[in-house]
């Protein structure tokens, strides 16, 4: 735990519900100015972790520190964090500007001053002039921005966001991602956000904490998790991958498919002892289809084809129960026998 004196430190927290361990001794930190994503499938404990950080849930064990101060038992109203809820939790009986000004009202800011600050917060999220509307009159994207303005106007020490993009339709989601990162970076406050969508995490986060069944699987930058997964679960969750059984052999892995063995070079991150069994992580961009015989290919048959605009994505069968997606610009018929080869060093996991 180095140099986290100014940020958030989550130290070994645990929480169980009815005997189920929802959060199983999780630790991570959020440094000043950093955007961190808590990523995991539903039930991974990411929302409970966020709620413990916010103060809405109590940890059974472990500590939460901010700026070196232990805030584990502090009520949510005293933490000075701003939270954006999954469904935004905008007060339906208040106008947009009253919603944004609520936190200032709670802090005893005078009416004129809080209206001024609330409307400039609305300006910043591009909603100037909509302050007098009722929240139901706004679109989903606009509501999300109101929630963001409401959380930001109190100048929080830390912003917490629970699935901030999950309520938006797919097209809006794409553009909002970049916008959200810009807004969060401009606000200077560090942010911790929960998402089940790795694309959201890749686009927004500086660092990702990947959770599964209440435990941290891996923490690192998006590139770390993608290129250097430490376990099969990480590789499965991040990106699209096929695991193929292999044995490490120095800087290469020997891979046998349908009785044909080739050596595949490993990237620097191989998390397997020399000589041990494991699996290589094959992603579509690391493989190519080779037509005709060649020394380093495996024979496969094409079982499916999907048109993806710039290229085709072929589904090929390697073995009885191994299929792999490969991108190619060439047109190949389903049923055709071709070869595949690995074109770049790949990660290996236990």
């Amino acid at each position, binding site marked *: 735990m180095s140099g986290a004196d100014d940020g958030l430190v989550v130290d070994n927290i645990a929480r169980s519900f009815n005997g189920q361990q929802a959060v199983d001794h999780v630790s991570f930190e959020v440094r000043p100015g950093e955007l961190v994503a808590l990523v995991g499938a539903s039930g991974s404990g990411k929302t409970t972790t966020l709620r413990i950080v*916010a*103060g*809405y849930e*109590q940890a059974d064990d472990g500590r939460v520190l901010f700026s070196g101060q232990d805030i584990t*038992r502090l*009520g*949510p*109203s*005293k*933490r*000075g*964090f*701003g*939270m954006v*809820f*999954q*469904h935004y*939790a905008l*007060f*339906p*009986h208040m106008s947009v500007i009253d919603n944004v000004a*609520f*936190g200032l*009202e*709670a*802090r005893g800011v005078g009416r004129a001053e809080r209206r001024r600050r609330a409307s400039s917060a609305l300006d910043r999220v591009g909603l100037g002039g909509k302050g007098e509307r009722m929240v139901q009159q706004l679109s989903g994207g606009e509501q999300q921005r109101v929630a963001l303005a*409401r*959380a930001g106007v*109190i100048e929080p020490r830390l912003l917490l966001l629970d699935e901030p993009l999950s309520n938006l339709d797919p097209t809006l989601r794409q553009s909002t991602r970049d916008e959200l990162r810009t807004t969060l970076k401009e606000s200077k406050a560090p942010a911790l956000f929960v998402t089940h969508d790795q694309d959201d995490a890749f686009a927004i986060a500086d660092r990702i904490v990947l959770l599964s069944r209440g435990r941290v699987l891996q923490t690192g930058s998006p590139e770390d998790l993608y290129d250097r997964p430490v376990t099969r679960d990480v590789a499965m969750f991040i990106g699209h991958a096929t695991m193929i059984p292999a044995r490490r052999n120095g800087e290469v892995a020997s891979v046998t498919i349908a009785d044909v063995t080739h050596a595949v070079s490993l990237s620097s991150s191989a998390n397997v002892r020399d000589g041990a069994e494991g699996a290589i992580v094959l992603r579509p961009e690391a493989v190519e289809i080779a037509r005709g015989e060649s020394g380093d290919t495996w024979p496969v048959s094409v079982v499916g084809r999907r048109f993806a605009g710039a290229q085709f994505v072929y589904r090929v069968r390697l073995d009885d129960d191994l299929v792999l997606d490969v991108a190619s610009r060439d047109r190949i018929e389903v049923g055709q026998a071709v070869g595949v080869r690995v074109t770049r060093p790949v990660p290996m996991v236990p």
Partner: protein
Amino acid sequence: MTVARWFDQRSRAERMATLAALPLLLVLIWTVVYPNVAVIAGSFGHWREFAESPSDVEALKNSIIIAVASVVASLAIGVPLAFLLTRFDFPGRTLLRAAALLPAALPPLVGVISFLFLYGDTGVITRLTQIVLGLQEVPWHLNGIGAIIFIHAYTMYVYVYLFVSAGLERYEASLDEAAVGLGASTFRRLTRVTLPLLTPAIAGSALLVFMSALGSFSAPYVFGGGIRVLSTQILNSKLNDAIGLAYVETTVLAISAVAGLMLFRWLEGKRAYVAAGKGGASRRPVHSRWARVALACAAGLIVLVLVLPHLMIVLVSFAKDGAWTTQVLPPVYTTHNYAGLFTENQLWTPIRNSIVMSVLATAANVVFCVAGAYLIVTRKFSGRRLLEVLVALPWAIPGTAVALGLLATFNKNDIAMGKILLVGTFWILPLAYFVRDIPLVSQAVEGSLRQMDPSLEPAARGLGASWWMAVRRVVLPAARPGIVAGALLACVTAVGEFVASIVLYTHGNRPISIEILAQLRSYAFGTASAYSTLLIGLVLIMALAARIAESRMQ
């Protein structure tokens, strides 16, 4: 030691909620649970009396027959009417839809009286029929089980109609379309798809009818003839000073009600589908000319039957007391009946009593039930389930039984036994109204709070609001529609309350319903009707106010 340890193991939030719920639980145990226990305790030693009394055994049998028959009759009217009004378009539909709710605006005793004026031996319809058919004798007598079921069907089908209509409004139209697309006939579609999916609505409303009919007091009391039912037996025993027997009868009635409740819940549980969809079934216009004419005529006739009791009450309220003897309609009209209510002290007192007592009870209901509903909906704590059950409990206990329970508990000052003397004082009736309306107000407020996004209060706290600020600025505004609706409903039922009142009233705090009965007994039909009209007016005004409050908040 163990309590302290248990307490320590809870989170702070849970401890606070448990502490806050404690006074509410104590009030409920004192005013709801304890009275029932006292009744059961008082019944010991009198069960042989009950078992050996032929009239009591008959009363139990009659009560159950009436309850079951009322359910059947209400279903037979309510279900087809709901289908007709939600699925078809025909001339007169709008009018019929409005009139279908009218029986709900009749306080229990008032409905009974209007039926007496219309269909009793000297009633308008009875005499008209006699004259038109040229009969020597009256064509029928409005008494006995048949008469009771008749008026129950009129007043209680509304529950079925409302529940089934609501079910049909939400009903996913594509389900019927799918059934038709798969080749189902109309009959098969109805019996295999539509009705099974409406089972929750039908069972829920049938339960309401069963409970109301089982505990019904006004109809058997006024024109039961020689028919005995449990609720009237209880009052008789009490008036004959056989209080032990009254406790047995009360226990039997309460057990029957709870058994009925459990039976229906069990039936409902067997068919628990969640069939709520987007709704969207459109009404089909009826095209055939003859069908349209027939439907319009039928609608007109039904509307007339529905409106007649109200019209009759209003008409008789202008009739000069004592002048209506053998004529079909009252011969002499006056506004004196109304003037009397507001000028004669004796006649004004019941109105003042009813208003004061119902406002007191309602105010207490609002404070108590908002606190309870808030804890039930927004908190998790040990005792939450108990609180939930106890606020709903008075609903399962017939009014007569509630009254006997209060009678058994608040009959003397005995602090050690948790008893204080309220019987014979003004306060016993506001207490009875409060207890009876707890479920109503709680349910309304809980309904509103459940619609609230559960993140709102945490969001307010997270923005730095104190607990009280979050409640005042966020939770109470969200609960407001339920509070307003629940308060108005409670006020209306309390103002017209009769069943518990007749057991517990004193001359000093006699409410309107008791005075109506007294006026009726002295053949002052005009005055009794003027009171009744006042009650109907109050009901309609409050229903309107609730509707306006609701639409304003949206």
